[in-house]
């Protein structure tokens, strides 16, 4: 059998797992692994400028491809800098394996230089973690980590690797396990047959059904089944922020995103539905508004691979534990077999009602002669990219506007931090997507607050020539914070104004990128066209937008799903 050191085993195990890209930052306790990477020609390593960005890159790489993202960092600050990234992936159920260095086993507990209990620090935000105390444990730990990260409800897994375990002088027989099974971990994939039958009956009997589809449908690659089911029964489909793209954004049965900044028609359809069929969505507080007033007449059917998501916030009348893809396929097969149909007359009446709500055109906005509206920017981006770009975003108003005004055609096209709401996610996320798909247009829609949280990665873009487009909706303030302060804090703008926003054009040029300033609406489209034509350069477009624009619709706090502000002056009847 081949003899390898612990450090070599790490790299070989990753290779044998099929890992091609890894994101990281070296340091004292992982030097041996970095030395082994140097001698490997199979794994491409990207050196970031801050470890948080490495995790976001790996995370977005995973979101865009469906593969497991992989990160390598050193002990102490290298490891703790990853925490926000790991928490971001955890909240959105993204499979990651994070390898962190550790002080030698004989120093653990002595407060040695760069010692941090990474297993302890990361525990609340990982799916699982491993600490390897001998080199021989490494291949099996890595195999298990990838298996756990990518199956069931996916999530990040941390592997702690003490320095002495990596020692290049100590060689041990290496064999990468072909498969792994854990007696305590067996995710359920297919749905209970009785429940499937009941679900089909309930769904076909419903007069006012809504298909409420979340990120779980994307993770499970269930878009085909969602589309088939929706079309077969003529069901209205709404997406969560994480579910956008799981159903074609321009499909006539798509009623828009739901929730806090959801469309009028989506939120009213939910509120008035007699059956809500949740597929890989988790009734998040940003969706339900006040749970006490949530959809009073609706029976709830819920598919989720994670039993804890079912009946956590909203009681499910018909729970189905399983993968969205498998369960929907089971339902489709049963519908096919039994020729089950719903009553087209009552569904038609339901659509008449929905179309009436749709006619309100809640996403309409007033343009201005003096200011560029953020909505215009996203619509122009959609036009120039023909709806084909991978769009990443940061967190705030620009994120909501992108979600509302860029109808995503396909899954894995919209990459954002939904659960954690991590500012600073967008740029490294765009880089991760571009590394995964070098030939596709990738754009990071960002704000002047968010972009500055990981702007150092412009340097990584320069080093590896990762030609992403950065589209900055610059309102010289923390827009969403300001919106809340204006609406709910008497207009007191406590620390939401950026007094010294840098010259982003010059900053981009300092990193040898192209910076374009857009101050008028006429300059917008040419700037975007140029940015996507320059396929081998990073282009940073700084668009001065109307600083007073708010995001609407917006649900009214403590209200039901249908209670919304529709503009600065309009709201639904109480």
């Amino acid at each position, binding site marked *: 059998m081949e003899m390898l050191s612990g450090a070599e085993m790490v790299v070989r195990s990753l290779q044998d797992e099929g890992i091609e890209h890894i994101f990281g930052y070296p340091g004292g306790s992982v030097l041996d692994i970095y030395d082994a990477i140097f001698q490997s020609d199979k794994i491409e390593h990207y050196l970031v400028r801050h470890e948080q960005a490495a995790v976001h890159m790996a995370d977005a790489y995973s979101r865009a491809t469906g593969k497991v993202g992989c990160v390598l960092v050193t002990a102490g600050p290298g490891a703790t800098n990853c925490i926000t990234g790991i928490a971001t992936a955890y909240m959105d159920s993204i499979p990651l394996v994070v390898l962190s260095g550790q002080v030698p086993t004989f120093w653990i507990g002595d407060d040695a230089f760069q010692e941090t209990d990474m297993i302890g620090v990361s*525990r*609340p935000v990982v799916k699982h973690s491993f600490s390897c105390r001998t080199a021989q444990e490494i291949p099996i730990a890595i195999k298990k980590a990838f298996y756990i990260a990518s199956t069931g409800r996916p999530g990040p897994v941390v592997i702690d690797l003490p320095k002495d375990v990596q020692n290049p002088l100590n060689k041990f027989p290496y064999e990468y396990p072909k498969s792994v099974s854990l007696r305590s971990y067996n995710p359920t994939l297919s749905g209970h047959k009785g429940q499937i039958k009941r679900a089909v009956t309930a769904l076909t009997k419903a007069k006012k059904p809504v298909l409420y589809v979340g990120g779980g449908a994307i993770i499970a690659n269930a878009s085909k089944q969602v589309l088939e089911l929706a079309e077969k029964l003529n069901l209205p489909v709404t997406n969560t922020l994480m579910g956008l793209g799981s159903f074609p954004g321009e499909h006539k049965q798509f009623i828009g995103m739901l929730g806090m900044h959801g469309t009028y028609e989506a939120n009213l359809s939910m509120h008035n539905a007699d059956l809500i069929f949740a597929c890989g969505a988790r009734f998040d507080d940003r969706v339900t508004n006040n749970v006490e007033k949530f959809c009073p007449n609706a029976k709830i059917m819920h598919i989720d691979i994670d*039993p*804890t998501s079912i009946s956590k916030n909203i009681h499910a009348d018909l729970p189905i534990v399983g993968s969205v893809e498998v369960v929907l396929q089971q339902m489709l097969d049963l519908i096919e077999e039994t020729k089950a149909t719903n009553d087209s007359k009552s569904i038609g009446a339901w659509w008449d009602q929905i179309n009436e709500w749709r006619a309100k055109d809640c996403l309409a906005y007033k343009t201005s002669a003096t200011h560029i509206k953020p909505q215009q920017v996203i619509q122009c981006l959609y036009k120039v990219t023909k709806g084909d770009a991978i769009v990443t975003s940061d967190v705030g108003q620009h994120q909501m506007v992108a979600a509302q005004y860029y109808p995503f055609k396909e899954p894995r096209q919209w990459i954002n931090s939904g659960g954690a709401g991590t500012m600073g996610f967008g740029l490294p996320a765009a880089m991760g997507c571009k590394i995964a798909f070098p030939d596709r247009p990738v754009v990071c829609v960002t704000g002047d607050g968010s972009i500055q949280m990981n702007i150092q990665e412009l340097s990584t873009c320069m080093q590896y020539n990762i030609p992403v487009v950065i589209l900055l909706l610059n309102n010289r303030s923390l827009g969403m914070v300001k919106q809340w302060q204006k609406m709910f804090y008497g207009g007191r703008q406590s620390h939401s104004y950026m007094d010294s926003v840098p010259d982003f054009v010059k900053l981009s040029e300092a990193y040898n990128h192209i910076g374009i300033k857009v101050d008028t609406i006429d300059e917008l489209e040419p700037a975007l066209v140029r940015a996507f034509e320059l396929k081998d350069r990073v282009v940073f477009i700084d668009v001065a937008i109307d600083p007073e624009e708010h995001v609407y619709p917006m649900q009214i706090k403590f209200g039901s799903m249908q209670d919304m502000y529709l503009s600065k002056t309009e709201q639904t009847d109480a």
Partner: protein
Amino acid sequence: MRRIISVLLENESGALARVVGLFAQRGYNIESLTVAPTNDKTLSRMTITTDVVNTATLEQMMKQLHKLVDVLRVSELTQTEHVERELLLIKVRTVNTEAREEVKRTCDIYRGQIVDITQTLYTIQLTGAGSKLDAFIATINDAGEIVEVVRSGVCGIARGDKALRG
């Protein structure tokens, strides 16, 4: 409402911390927790007593426990016939013969055992349900001065055929 949850989990480093972390993280209350390896040394058996406000919380708690990768089985004991026991070790100071006799008598009534003795101190061992131990502590307090109390927390097992196995 008081509930007893039995957990069968991998006997691995970090497994206990994950369970305790889960309770802290999700705001669940732990009244007592006992854990030790089973006859199969690769498995640990844990008994947790908790106070939950409603069954939805209990259900969520059990699902969250089961979601931990290390956990094999979770069951709730209080809803079925079960046996629960707790061990008490208590050290009592007595000032005279009369007090010593009273302590011995109380101990006998409760079927406790005196496991250590000095000129002035009795160390008593007692097992039973928590309420029995509470009653004993209250009674012995009248006979002598309580110097130290150690309780193991609850261990529980279902009656009859039901078993939590790997």
